[in-house]
């Protein structure tokens, strides 16, 4: 169980749809271990009220995470975080998608004016974090 307050940050004015931002932020916290198995996330209704977004937006985000095996959705009682093991064999499609999306992202960042050195530094720091 986590003891420190667990804060979810959403940018309503951002480019990505809100449900996608919820999925990304929660998945990041789950992968990083900030949210431990056994933790109960707020019910759909509660999170939607706190965020001021439609119930379906939160429900869709929870459904995606449940389909990935992260959550067990319980009616009115929130979403239970499950202990999820990484698949034994990496998905080939996911691997090629990852490479393509990473290249696209790097291109987008360079187009927006970020220096190649800055991007490389960020990627290196991320890679080092993964290897620890």
């Amino acid at each position, binding site marked *: 169980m986590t003891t420190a*307050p667990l*804060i*979810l940050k*959403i*940018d309503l004015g951002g480019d990505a749809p809100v449900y996608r931002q919820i999925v990304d932020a929660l998945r990041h916290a789950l992968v990083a271990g900030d949210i431990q198995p056994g933790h109960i996330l*707020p019910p759909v209704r*509660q999170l939607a*009220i*706190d965020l*001021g977004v439609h119930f379906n937006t939160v429900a869709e985000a929870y459904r995606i995470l449940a389909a990935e095996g992260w959550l067990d959705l319980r009616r009115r009682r929130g979403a239970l975080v499950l202990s999820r093991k990484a698949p034994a064999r990496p998905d080939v499609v996911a691997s090629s998608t990852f490479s393509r999306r990473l290249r696209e992202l790097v291109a987008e960042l360079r187009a927006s004016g970020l220096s190649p050195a800055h991007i490389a530094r960020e990627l290196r720091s991320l890679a080092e974090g993964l290897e620890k």
Partner: protein
Amino acid sequence: MNPITWFPALMILLLGLLWYRMPQLTRPGIFFSVTVDPGFRETPEGLAIRRTYNTRIGIQTAVALAVAIAAALLSNQALYAVAIGWESLAPLIAMKSAHERTLPFAVVPSRVLEVDLSPHTESLPGGMIAFVIPFALLAACAAILHWNWDQIPQNFPVHWGIDGNPNRWVERTPQNVYGFLALGTLSCLAMLVSAALVVRARRISVSGEPGRSEQSFRRLSVWTLLISAYVVAFSFGALPLLAITPGASAARLLIGLTLLSMAVIVALFVRHGQGGARLSGAQTSSNPPGDRTPDNCWKWGLIYVNPDDPALFVEKRFGLGYTVNFGNRWSWILLPAILVVPLAGMLIR
């Protein structure tokens, strides 16, 4: 002259003070129902708006006081109603004017939201037992009335003046006797359901002093609704019972209890203010301004209508406690039940 006849004048004076204090009771980032920079109220423009509002409140309260004093001297009940009605509604014009003057200084609320993913730990104080007691009280009153039906006078009082003497009577019929209990039950249900929903109301500030202050405000609001439900159950239950145990002292006790509970509740809200109202600008600087409700969804700065917001209860921007989101269809079911007490008071003839 009965000193109690001066009670409305005192009430108007207290109402005037409440209206005067009202702009200070909201969050620092809300000023006359408009989202502003937390420091705006101390700027020359903010102070000028506040001064004009205070002057208007002063004049309107003086007019209401004059009418209440005339009512006391002439012993005129209608003038009492005019004075109280004026003091309750006329300040809204001053508020609306201040709201319109503040609108040009509105800031765009932050689009970045933070929510706490920890489970909500708040619950209804007393749990299910506290929820059931008011209904048990009303059921017990119904049983006592049923067993003592013959002792109920053919015409029994249902309304008392400020001197504690009855001034309205109704016939002894099952509809009239049990009707009050049914109204009380409906009203209690609405208040207790509201309390349960306020427990789950939106958490705007998630950490630090603003978070704690908001939590304490929510707790106060829940206790207020719970106590109100008990007062309503007690009053509506006691009302027909007074018919079989007549006496002005019992009626006075009932009126006194209701007024005392109202006074305590208002005093607590004024002392506490709305969620985070008592915090300085520095304490709230890490929080984005506003209350996560868009300015354009507040009609006249008082009524919240936002069909895109799933919240049923939101913090009032000008006033004490919470208000319903009229854009939520459930509000149209809950509101008539909440208004049943004042409506019943007006309809009893």
